[in-house]
């Protein structure tokens, strides 16, 4: 069995299940909690990873912006000096208009970097190993992927403890 999970009708029950798993010795990052909308104010567990992720995404966005800025500078430099044409008495490399190009490509770089970070970080487009369509009908799923064979019984007990729990599991791939 590659995953075991419980489905819970509300946040309190899901929280109880998470607490039970952690009491049973499962590390926070190993617990998967699936919801149909972001649960603000319900912190199923807090290991500081949220802040780390936020910082990383902002850093990546900034890096993307810098890349865009560099690309825009290089592009406008190459474009204007490779065949220097005089127009309207403006300088060959004209800073004011080029700043517009640089601004636009900076923002484009930041936005593209953000989306790439999201797709990679949120593992979008990858094979799903643990899921139940009941999640999008309002249930909260708490589960563990690839649990220790010997501890399955203890973990199942922890998952079944909260009121209204429905257990499930799949063999996965």
């Amino acid at each position, binding site marked *: 069995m590659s995953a075991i999970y419980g489905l819970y009708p509300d946040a309190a029950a899901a929280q109880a299940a998470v607490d039970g798993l952690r009491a049973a010795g499962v590390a926070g990052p190993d617990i998967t909690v699936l919801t149909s909308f972001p649960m603000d104010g319900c912190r199923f567990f807090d290991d500081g990873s949220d802040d780390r992720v936020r910082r990383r995404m902002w850093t990546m966005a900034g890096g993307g912006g810098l890349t865009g800025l560099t690309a825009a500078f290089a592009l406008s430099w190459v474009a204007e000096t490779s065949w220097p044409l*005089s127009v309207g*008495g403006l300088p060959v490399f004209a800073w004011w208009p080029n700043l517009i190009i640089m601004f636009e490509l900076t923002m484009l770089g930041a936005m593209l970097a953000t989306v790439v970070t999201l797709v990679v970080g949120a593992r979008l487009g990858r094979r799903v190993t643990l899921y139940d369509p009941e999640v999008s009908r309002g249930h909260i799923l708490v589960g563990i992927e690839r649990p220790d064979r010997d501890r399955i019984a203890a973990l199942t007990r922890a998952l079944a403890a909260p009121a209204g729990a429905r257990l499930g599991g799949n063999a996965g791939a």
Partner: protein
Amino acid sequence: MTPPLVTTSVQEEDTTEMPKWGMAVDLDACTGCGACVTACHAENNISTVGAEQAARGRAKHWIRVERYWEGSFPDVRLRFQPVMCQQCDSAPCEPVCPTYASHHTEDGLNAQVYNRCIGTRYCANACPYNTRFFDFFNPAWDKPLHLQLNPDVSLREVGVMEKCTFCVQRIRAGTIAAKADARELKDGDITTACVQTCPAHALVFGDLSDPDSRVSQMARAARGTALLGDLGTQPNVTYLQRQTP
């Protein structure tokens, strides 16, 4: 001569030898006969569009004779003013063109490269003199007029802008001929179609960088003014204002 507003690397390249083409228009001499317009059409393969299209603003007169009435009846006077591309040193049409179809050449011409033009018509809007014309249709000539086309001037297809080039084909031909004969260009070696045709000698063409050329002398004249000079376009055409009442 005033120095250029901004020095570019293009201008830094050995511009001392470069001519600076210019024109002078003596408004006292202009009789408004329109020979320059006809000569320009013939020289530059400018297609005519017919009365109906001309009324809709599709006529292309690279040079036109503007008519202004002065005074009130019965003391009315008719004034003429030939207007062509002013070949501005600080041309508003140039920086707005996205494809460099409109740009400045080393010899101070405001060039229009038809093959590079994609037809945004932005240059025509930016031009304060309205001397740029758009090809609304492919050019056509009634037979046998198609046989009189000038082989030195390319035809413009539908969707591009065109305008007065100071007869660049004559400038290039004259320069090349002088170079082949290993001689200096003299004042009067090169002349544009409109200047050549003007019966009143109201139009004068020449090199402004040569202080002794006729056009330079006329440009320095006390009654010399630039058309819409306060816009800062630095035209290379000088108008000699009227002295006659």
